[in-house]
Every structure is written in C-alpha cells, then in structure tokens.
C-alpha cells in the first residue's frame, strides 16, 4: 500500500469516528434543544470538533514524509478534491432541503447554520480521503 493511500485510510477511519462521535454526543446530550440552552454542552461540542480538527491535522502532518509521494500519488491527490467538492455540495443540498422543509413556517434558527458548518467540515475532511482511495481504486493511467 502506498504511503499516501495509507494516509488516506487513516484519515478516513479517523474522520468517520470523529463524525460519528459528534453525532452520538449531540444526540445523547439532548440534541438541538439542549444545545441551544446549555452553554456547557456547546463548549463540549466546540472542543470535540476543534480538537478533532487539530488531531486530524497532526495525523496528516506526521504521516507526511518526503520522498514517499511520487508523480502518480500527486496525480491522484490532485483529483481527490473533485470527490471532496461533490460531497460538500451534496451535504449542503441535503441540509438546505431538510431545514427548509422542517422550518418553513418558523424561519430557520441561526443555530442550524452552526450545525451546517460543523457537518460540512467533517464531510470535507472525510471526502478528501475517500477521493484519494477512489483514485487508487480507479487508478491513474498517465503521468
């Protein structure tokens, strides 16, 4: 397995665990209602996503070694953002439709924009790794 491929697998695994952990904590603590009323809960969620982001950055940095990425890896890496972009767009479309339909009569509370941001961030991190793995799976044919 290529070092970049390994890095993408670690990134994907961490990203999924990170996203699931945030969802579980959010639901277990009482969801949107509690999030709105309880500042302590908001701080926990803040710590979780900011801490996850920092950990993700450290993981990617430590796995990155010079001379382990060649021209084929760079081609694959260059194509990964296509998957990332589509995943982010898809995520935003889903959020927009769900929020619009749910709160059509009430107006959308600003709190949901915060959730949209966190979700987009997590999706973006995971989708880049998926993009790299898809690149290896499909293969690049020309240098």
């Amino acid at each position, binding site marked *: 397995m*290529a070092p970049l491929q390994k890095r993408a697998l670690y990134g994907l695994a961490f990203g999924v665990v990170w996203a699931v952990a945030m969802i579980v904590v959010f639901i277990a603590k009482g969801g949107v209602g509690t999030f709105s009323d309880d500042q302590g809960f908001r701080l926990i969620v803040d710590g979780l996503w900011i801490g996850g982001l920092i950990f993700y950055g450290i993981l990617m940095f430590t796995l990155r070694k010079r001379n382990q990425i*060649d*021209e*084929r890896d760079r081609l694959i890496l260059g194509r990964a953002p296509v998957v990332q972009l589509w995943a982010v767009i898809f995520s935003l479309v889903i959020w927009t439709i769900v929020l619009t339909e749910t709160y059509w009569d009430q107006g959308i509370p600003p709190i949901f924009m915060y959730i949209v941001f966190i979700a987009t961030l997590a999706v973006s991190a995971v989708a880049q790794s998926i993009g790299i793995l898809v690149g290896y*799976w499909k*293969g*690049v*044919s*020309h*240098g």
Partner: protein
Amino acid sequence: MAKTASIRNRIRRLRFDNNEMTQEELANRAGCTRQTIIALEQGKYVPSIELAFKIARVFGVSLEEVFQYEEAM
C-alpha cells in the same frame, strides 16, 4: 477500473534480466514508489517522460527498449 494503456513496457523482463532486481530497488533508484512500479508492470499507468527516462537509465538501456508505443485499435 483503469483503461489498458497504449504504451507497453518491458520493466518486468528487464528487472529479471538485471539480477532479478526487486520492485523496491527499482523504485528507489528511479525515485518513485513500489506501487507505481507495480502499476507500470500491470499496464495500469503510463509514466511521465522524466520517470520513463529514469527507469531506462536504471537498466542502462534506451527509452524504446523499455517502453513501446502501440496505436490504439
């Protein structure tokens, strides 16, 4: 999956003829990863001109002795 490349190569044969050079050794000497050598040998990847020259130089042969261009049918 990847399309079959129209440029074929004799890397596997040349490795065998050079004291059964390992993919890892060829990769190190050509400045790429072993996975790229594997992809090349399987015909799933066509290298850049630079990498092609480096590989030919490792074997001490001309570029065309390693890579052959074939018109797509």
